[in-house]
């Protein structure tokens, strides 16, 4: 909009993020809406387990301002085993359905398994959201093969679907940077497009609440790397523990972390509550000067 220096730290300049047919400029704050194809995810379990309900939610979140649909077939928390075939059964037909309903949509799938990644890319997915920090190194190869994007996250030393148990770091942000930048570099080597890679500190994954607060506070160290930063904080336990808030009482805390993250330079925000997140991000964008207010009359009449 103008030549002012954007909020955030000095560092490597951010470039455009390209996912599917979409290109997101550096100043654009992008919402990734969560659509779980699971009966047992932590937040409102099972609400989009049904096919029709899930597709209804996709249309609703797009109307509310979502830019990316993130489809998950396996909860992050420990629980009943979901074999590869079952994860594919939960996600692939739905990816096809979303692609058919919304040909231009950016479709992400939350998975760590390369077999699932291959199947969803064949069905039309644009982004592989690996919350488990490259646990399956072949996932990056699949992203490269299909020209898809890849999220490179930090989960400490935790294997998928485990909770942190007495985790410690001498410097959690240093560990996050080391891991996510390392994964991003390896993804580039594997052939994933530089403009299709995101890094994610993965709040709560392999972290206690103190660690998640620290990475929230120091997020500018990630954005200074030049890689687009995704944050996934929606209704998570670190918000609940910080505020002493139950699962249904975490929206205000979520939006606060979202706003601080945006101010520190994060670009993609994985969210359950899309309309509220869009409002929070629009407010940040207007404060930064990247978005004009909707209508300004006060004091000007």
């Amino acid at each position, binding site marked *: 909009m103008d030549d002012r220096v954007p909020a955030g730290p000095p560092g490597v300049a951010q470039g455009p993020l390209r996912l599917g047919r979409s290109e997101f400029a550096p100043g654009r704050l992008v919402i990734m809406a969560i659509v779980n194809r699971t009966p047992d995810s932590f937040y409102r379990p099972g609400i989009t387990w049904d096919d029709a309900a899930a597709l209804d939610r996709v249309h609703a979140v797009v109307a509310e301002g979502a830019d990316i649909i993130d489809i998950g077939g396996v909860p992050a928390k420990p629980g009943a085993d979901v074999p590869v075939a079952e994860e594919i059964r939960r996600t692939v037909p739905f990816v096809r359905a979303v692609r058919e309903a919304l040909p231009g949509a950016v479709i992400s799938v939350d998975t760590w398994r390369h077999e699932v990644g291959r199947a969803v890319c064949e069905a039309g997915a644009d982004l592989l959201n690996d919350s488990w920090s490259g646990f399956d190194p072949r996932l990056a190869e699949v992203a490269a093969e299909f020209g898809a994007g890849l999220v490179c996250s930090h989960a400490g030393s935790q294997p998928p679907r485990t909770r942190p148990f007495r985790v410690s770091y001498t410097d959690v942000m240093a560990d996050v940077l080391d891991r996510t930048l390392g994964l991003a570099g390896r993804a580039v080597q594997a052939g994933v497009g530089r403009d299709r890679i995101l890094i994610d500190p993965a709040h709560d994954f392999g972290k206690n609440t103190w660690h998640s607060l620290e990475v929230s506070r120091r997020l500018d160290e990630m954005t200074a790397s030049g890689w687009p930063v995704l944050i996934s904080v929606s209704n998570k336990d670190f918000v609940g523990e910080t505020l002493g808030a139950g699962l249904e009482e975490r929206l205000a805390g979520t939006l606060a972390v979202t706003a601080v993250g945006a101010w520190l330079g994060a670009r993609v925000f994985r969210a359950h509550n899309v309309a509220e997140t869009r409002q929070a991000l629009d407010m940040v964008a207007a404060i930064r000067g990247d978005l004009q207010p909707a*209508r300004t009359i006060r004091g000007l009449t």
Partner: protein
Amino acid sequence: MISRAVLCPCPPLLARELTGRDPAVPGLREACAAAVSWLIQHAPRQVIVVGPAPSTADWDPGSRLDLSIFAPGRGDGGKPDLPLSLGLGALLLDQAGFPGSRVLQAVGGGEPPDQCIRLGEALAGSAGGQAVLLAMGDGSARRTVSAPGHLDERAIRFDDDVQRAVHDGDLAALAAVDPGLAHELMATGRPAWQVLAGALGPGAPGTAVLYAGAPFGVAYLVARFERARSHES
């Protein structure tokens, strides 16, 4: 003598840059643009812009409004202390593509009616019949409970009287507007109306009212005036 004159309001929101993504007042802007376009239709040698300000003064005719005083970061190198009324008048002339000479004349908000009328006569006289007048000024800002000055029940009648005088080309009625009442009603356009009356007088000009409304509790009026032409509206 002044052959043509236009009256426009001067709220900051007349500048499109200040209302965000919503144009907010497209009809008002169109009416102002149409009036100013008509004003300069015959390429007058000079446009005299007159508008209310804290004090009467002649401003550098090259001055422009600095929008950043209303919206930090959205300015474009204007003059921060230029009165809003003159800045918006200059903006309207720029938008209409007027390339000629201009006078930017501020008239003090406390200037008594006879002084305003004399100022109008002097401006008209100095122009030697080659100038037109763009008068900037608003009616009451106390039209509703949500208006900037809250509701004063006298406001609607006051503005109706002004609008009728403008519509009828009744310059004597404009010259007679009570400065005390205008002040109480936050009708900041009063001195400009009276300069207009002095510049156009005596006798009734032809007029056309292009816009009359108070969408935000402040009375806006867009009108044109022409000498040597019969009553148009």
